[in-house]
């Protein structure tokens, strides 16, 4: 079911049964689900930079979902994020959305709504992701140039 190109959904939720259930649901929908019990677990275990989509519980012991979102933003990781909360309070949802979350759902959430939110988050991120990837490759190539080649490149660009 999980073909090699399956999109990763990172699930961060401190509630064991919720985490497992969400992973089952997303796997059944064809995603590669990875689970983390806390914000810290995610920061330690996820690839750097993480790819795919983040499904993030708002309230967790230790750093909460908003804190994780903030850390990722500071590190320059743009991971489309869908928040899930057991108690949807307005202040937190506003903060999350202002900080770039693509959706804010309250538990219990229906599969249709959840899968649509994940799909939309990934879709909205797709053009940005392509652009980020292009920049990353360019920077990577640029770093392989030696000093003389860099001078030549600069001259070429300026001469245009």
């Amino acid at each position, binding site marked *: 079911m999980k073909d090699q190109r399956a999109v990763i959904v990172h699930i961060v939720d401190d509630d064991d049964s919720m985490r497992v259930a969400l992973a*089952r649901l997303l796997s059944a929908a064809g995603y590669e689900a990875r689970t983390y019990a806390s914000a810290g677990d995610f920061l330690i275990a996820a690839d750097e930079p993480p790819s795919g989509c983040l499904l993030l519980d708002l309230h967790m012991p230790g750093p909460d979902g908003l804190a994780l979102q903030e850390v990722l933003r500071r590190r320059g990781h743009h991971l489309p994020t869908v928040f899930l909360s057991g108690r949807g309070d307005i202040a937190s949802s506003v903060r999350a959305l202002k900080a770039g979350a693509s959706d804010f759902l309250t538990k219990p*959430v229906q599969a249709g709504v959840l899968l649509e939110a994940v799909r939309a988050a990934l879709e909205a991120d797709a053009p940005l992701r392509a652009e980020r990837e292009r920049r990353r490759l360019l920077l990577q190539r640029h770093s392989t140039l030696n000093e003389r080649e860099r001078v030549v490149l600069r001259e070429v660009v300026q001469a245009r």
Partner: protein
Amino acid sequence: MRFAAMGELTASIAHEINQPLGAILANAEAAELLLQNGKAGTGQLREILADIRRDDLRAHEVIRRLRALLEKHEVRHEPMRLHSALADVLALLAPEAERRGVTLEQHFDALDDRLLGDAVQLQQVLMNLVLNAMDAMEQTAPGDRRVRITTAERGDALALSVADRGCGIDAAMHTTIFDSFVTTKARAWASGCRSCAPSSRLITDTSPWPRSPGAAPASPSRCRGALASRRPNQPARCRPPSKARHEGSARGDRAHR
């Protein structure tokens, strides 16, 4: 029951129930999706069903605790177990404590927790005391917010104390702390210790604990105030047929502002 307290707890309790409900829904829909795709293995479906059952019971347990607290009931003096009654309340309060960054420490040191009393009222008293204790620590540094709930045997009695690291009770208030609307809370809706005193009284037929509220608390925390009530000895006819050594006092030590 202090209904304002329920208001404070609603969000936390809703969260506590929504968590298993959310998992149940996600599991059921995952199973449906697997069946739809023709990818459902018996083993996996069985796992999903087992998890659904467990989460259902988990939600049921929260509701059971809540109903026990909220139902109208006649005051009954019955044999009860102090520790399991307290543990139920602390389980209900746990998510709220977590939300406020408060650690609840329980030290159930009484070896024999059998008691003759009204479990629900005792639970209501504990709930009020712990909520007040948490309120009293709003200015306390987050890492220092602790409420310690202790039980101990004091001769023929059982003592229950709730101590916090909050702002304490001013000495001037010690004589009035059980009166209505006496409070150290700044907010206007606070109704004071009185809101829990009536129930303490019902259970305990309160008479002042010999020690003044300002006396050094037994607990090592920086609790500077104590709310005290003592349960007088049960009349002999109320004693359980076995050995009546546990009827003693319900006593709440607490800081309050």
